[in-house]
């Protein structure tokens, strides 16, 4: 069998398995619903940040952001952060350390593909939990509501999907570091800190001091959060360019991910698991 045919067979098998994987993922979400709700609610930092910026803008707009703009920005941040949430870095760390990965490797489905399907299956659940929070925010400040133009909506959706993939890939990459380091959650925390400041989580990127903002434009952090938020809200002059940059980061991360998996598995086997 040629390599091409083998890859084709691999892809076809995974495509066939996808609906089942999604169903299983959703079922496990429902089984652990209470835990899921709590996890979702812990990502409340955008609201804490909103309170600060809201007070800062009480006497007038801050660099073009009024109170309504801040409310809209951090609401969108809260939603996009939820939709792009993953937990593969914790999962891989646990599975590599305890050896729980071994039985998974025997299955015909790639362990990471299964995790990706579970992560995707959690999205509708996250939306349900978010709904009451969004309703409260809307009651507090009705001018949050906005209707994106069809182009904004379409590009925004694409941007959210790319951000979802990139966030998951980054977590997978950090998770796979566990093949070499035993424990990579600390390193991931460092990534998260940079993401919070440079990726638009703590504040709109436009409000970063000049040199920091320029440096941030060359880093992958915005592509996981700020880009979809800004495209959805129509804050970008160049939405198509922004989405293409995201695509570039996804391709890069996918390549890194594939390479690391191949080499990491060799390491994993060598440990004698």
């Amino acid at each position, binding site marked *: 069998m040629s390599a091409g045919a083998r890859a084709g067979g691999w892809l076809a098998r995974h495509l066939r398995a996808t609906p089942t994987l999604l169903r299983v993922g959703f079922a496990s979400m429902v089984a652990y619903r209470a835990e899921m709700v709590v996890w979702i609610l*812990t990502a409340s930092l955008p609201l804490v940040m909103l309170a600060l910026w809201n007070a800062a803008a009480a006497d007038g707009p801050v660099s073009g952001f009024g109170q309504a703009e801040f409310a809209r920005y951090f609401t969108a941040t809260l939603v996009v952060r939820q939709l792009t949430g993953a937990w593969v870095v914790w999962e891989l760390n646990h599975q590599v350390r305890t050896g729980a990965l071994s039985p998974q490797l025997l299955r015909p489905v790639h362990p990471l593909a299964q995790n990706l399907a579970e992560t995707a299956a959690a999205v509708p659940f996250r939306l349900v939990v978010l709904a009451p929070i969004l309703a409260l925010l809307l009651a507090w400040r009705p001018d949050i509501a906005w209707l994106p133009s069809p182009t904004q909506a379409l590009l925004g959706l694409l941007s959210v999907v790319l951000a979802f993939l990139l966030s998951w890939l980054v977590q997978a990459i950090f998770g796979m570091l566990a093949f070499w380091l035993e424990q990579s959650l600390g390193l991931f925390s460092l990534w998260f800190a940079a993401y919070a400041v440079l990726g638009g989580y703590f504040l709109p990127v436009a*409000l970063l001091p000049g040199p920091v903002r320029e440096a941030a434009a060359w880093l992958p952090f915005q592509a996981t959060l700020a880009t979809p938020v800004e495209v959805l809200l129509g804050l970008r002059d160049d939405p198509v360019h922004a989405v293409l940059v995201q695509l570039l980061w996804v391709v890069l991360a996918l390549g890194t991910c594939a390479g690391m998996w191949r080499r990491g598995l060799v390491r994993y086997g060598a440990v004698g698991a």
Partner: protein
Amino acid sequence: MPEAPLPAMRRGPARWISVLAALGRVALMNAAAYRASFVVDVLVGAVASVGVVLPLLFVYEHAGSVAGWTLHQALLVTAFFLVLQGLVGLLVEPNLGAVVEGVRSGSLDYLVLKPVDAQLVASLQRVAPAKAWDVLAGLVVGAWALAHLPPPTWQGALLALGLLLAGLAAIYGVWVLVICTSFWFVRVDNLRFLLTAALDAGRWPVGVYRGWVRLLLTVVVPVALVTSFPAMALLGTARPGTVLHALVVAGGLLWASRLTWRGALRHYTSASS
């Protein structure tokens, strides 16, 4: 565990001191057993502390005063927040997390059988020394802020210390209340993450929040008692009503936590029986 002199042999205050000393020794030995992860924890803690201060600096780049607080006044609140976060991470979280695990696995039996107060031991059996970093960072930020403010009076400093202690007692009370739910609903590990997320809101001056959110932060999860109130005492803006409020809330929560802990222990049937 090494043989420690039996605390039950002594009476009165000497007994309590020897219990505390024994607990401290064992807790430190537990923490030192994982050195590599200790180093990573310290590093991550350093970055995280910077992450707490950074948004504040960005906000004051654009605004001279937020909710009536200047940068250095707000930094004082953040300093108290870092101290709180450090103490919670150092003492509260590891211990009460262990209680939840003990209820689930039944290992709480060993704790309840000891001839000392179970709540005392359950609250002090472990420490996570790496989290002490936050306390240190809090002291540094506090010194920095105070250097730019008129020096506080000694009455103000004393009042700040008193309010800080009352606030810490209140937070401890809330934490015990949350943990006690694990005696009825076994899987509540996540609830403590939710509590941590709620405490996050205490990093800004309480004036930033309005309406029921402020009520929440001063009564239900009274993090403002630990962060904003002592800062107000240092700045000389605390009123008698502030002090009374802090004492009532702290006393009420401590009392409720003691009652609930007793009730929960009566309800505890051990997982093994």
